[in-house]
């Protein structure tokens, strides 16, 4: 048995990989929460009247945030399964 395989089997038997997974889940969940808050803020900004440049900028931000939310949700779902 190679050293790396040995380490990973020890990690598995001690449940260390589970703790890695759960800390990632925790980080993702907290990040997702922040992203959703940000999305709400952008949406409420878009509802107000504003100059064209600012609107354009916020629309772009909305697209970026939406992609990140999708990504985070996908990874979370994979981890939970």
């Amino acid at each position, binding site marked *: 048995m190679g050293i790396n395989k040995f380490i990973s089997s020890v990690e598995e038997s001690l449940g260390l990989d589970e703790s890695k997974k759960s*800390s*990632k889940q*925790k*980080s*993702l969940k*907290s*990040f997702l929460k*922040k*992203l959703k*808050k*940000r999305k709400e803020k952008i949406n409420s900004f878009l509802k107000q009247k504003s100059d064209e440049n600012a609107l*354009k900028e916020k*629309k*772009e*931000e909305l*697209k*970026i*945030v939406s*992609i*990140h939310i999708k*990504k*985070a949700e996908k*990874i979370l779902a994979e981890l939970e399964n």
Partner: protein
Amino acid sequence: MILRKILLPSILVILAYGFWISPDFKEIAAGVSIFLFGMVTLEEGFKAFSGGTLEKILQKSTDKLYKSISFGFVVTAIMQSSSLVSVLTISFIGAGLIGLTQGIGIILGANIGTTTGAWLMAGFGLKVKISAYAMPMLVFGVILIFQKAKSLKGIGYILAGLGFLFLGIHYMKDGFEAFKASVDLASFAVDGFKGLLIFIGVGILATVVMQSSHATIVLILAALSVGQITYENALALTIGANIGTTITAVIGSLSSNIDGKRLAGAHFIFNVVTAVVAIAIMDQIIHVVDIISDFVGIASDNHTLKLAVFDTLFKVMGVLMFIPFVDKLVNFLESTLKFKKSTAKGSSREIDTDSAKYLNESVLEIPATSMAAIVRETKHLYENSFEIIAHGINVKRSNIVSSMPFEEVVKESYSNTPVDIDLFYNNRIKGIYGEIIDFATKAQSDMAHEDIAILYKIKVANRDLVEAVKDTKYIQKNLVKYSNSTNKQIRKQYNTMRMDLTELLRTINIIATTDEEDVIILLLSKVKIHAKRYDIVANGTLDNLIRNSLITNEMATSLMNDSSYAFDISKKLTDMAEIIFIDSSDMRIIKEDMAMSDEDIETIINQKD
């Protein structure tokens, strides 16, 4: 150096002679050596735990002066080594993790913390057969030292360290008891003020030689317990030990940066002033010690416990005396010990030569502080690079970091003549970059594999910064030439390039100064999208200009090359920011998963509003 060459052989010869004429002296010296070895071992053990927990506690518990003092006290009482606490403190100040005021607070607390050693020795070490505890500690300690796990090894060193400390005390005590039968050291006692000064001198010398005031005080207590020295002379020796320990700290700070030197200066001033005050009011202090001893039920002839009371009173008095003056002490040290700055003449302006701020030998003591220092130094390099890039594209740094519209930032030039980027590079980048790489190579020898992987990324971030500066130099020539060209199209393209780079610098600056993780990720994604969107080769702008003969072939070649350099600057600064400015542990775990891929960027660019 010459003194060192003479001092060491002299000490060895004196010791050898002492061993030859007195086996009891040999036992005392062996006791001191074992005790010192115990301290070294104990320090090694605590260092094993300094990888994360200690740093977190240190950062959280030093934000107020009373917290720093309490922290210094508790940690020194646990570790039984003020020198380890000093080393850690200098290391943390050097890495920029705590400030000088907090550092001084820790040192003040550590001074009180060392008194616990005297209490342990006087109240426990001299009364029970301490070697009985030493043996099992040594056995368990050594077994654990041979274990591979870092934490077990650390516990092993701590146990063995304590075992050696106890064994050392046992030998010192036995040695003095036996020594008493042949030589009565008490006959050398000197009374009065003369005796006070002589024994303070002996205390200083003993501490400088042993490099530990703790060991000196334990030795004093051992000698006092068997009546080999008088109580009054023991008090003077204790004061001497406190002065001697600052000399050790000053010597230790010579390899440290300016903050380490300032801290050693504070330590020196504190201990010397306290000692002078104690000498001036010695009779009153002795009287107060008697009152306290009576009050807590210490017998009037129990000189060892009374010495512990004196040691505590003397140090607490010093700390109370200094607390109101800590800020003044910081100001004094900052104005007395300053950074050395040199200036080189540039083509039109004077440019300060800059060097590394956070990298020094003291930081190398602990892998975690080495890493923190390298990250801070990279941020320092980033600040210099930011300035050079801003001036290279001829915009004012202050305008970039403001909320001024980009069009106006570009209109307000930094200088009428182009800045000498080479000179800037040589004075403010090259040296620091070289120092970071050199320091990182030294630091990684003590690091774990996963830390070495992180360090590699930081080195790449540094290289990105240096290359971004070099790319700016390539762009500068044509920026100067075309941003005021009579050809409207090429002028517009180069000013747009300046504007895009200004936007990039502003975004990176926000990333560097915010703590909001979602903002950092959002802005990093934005920068990547903009770099792609504004690439004039990819978006067809260049083709259009050539096809319609709006610019000459020479202009087209320059524009194509320079837009590629601008794209590289953008990419390198973004990559650097991803490594350096995402520093929360939560984000570090997920940043790779959350990074925007090329596919994501394409999706956003092609999406319609």
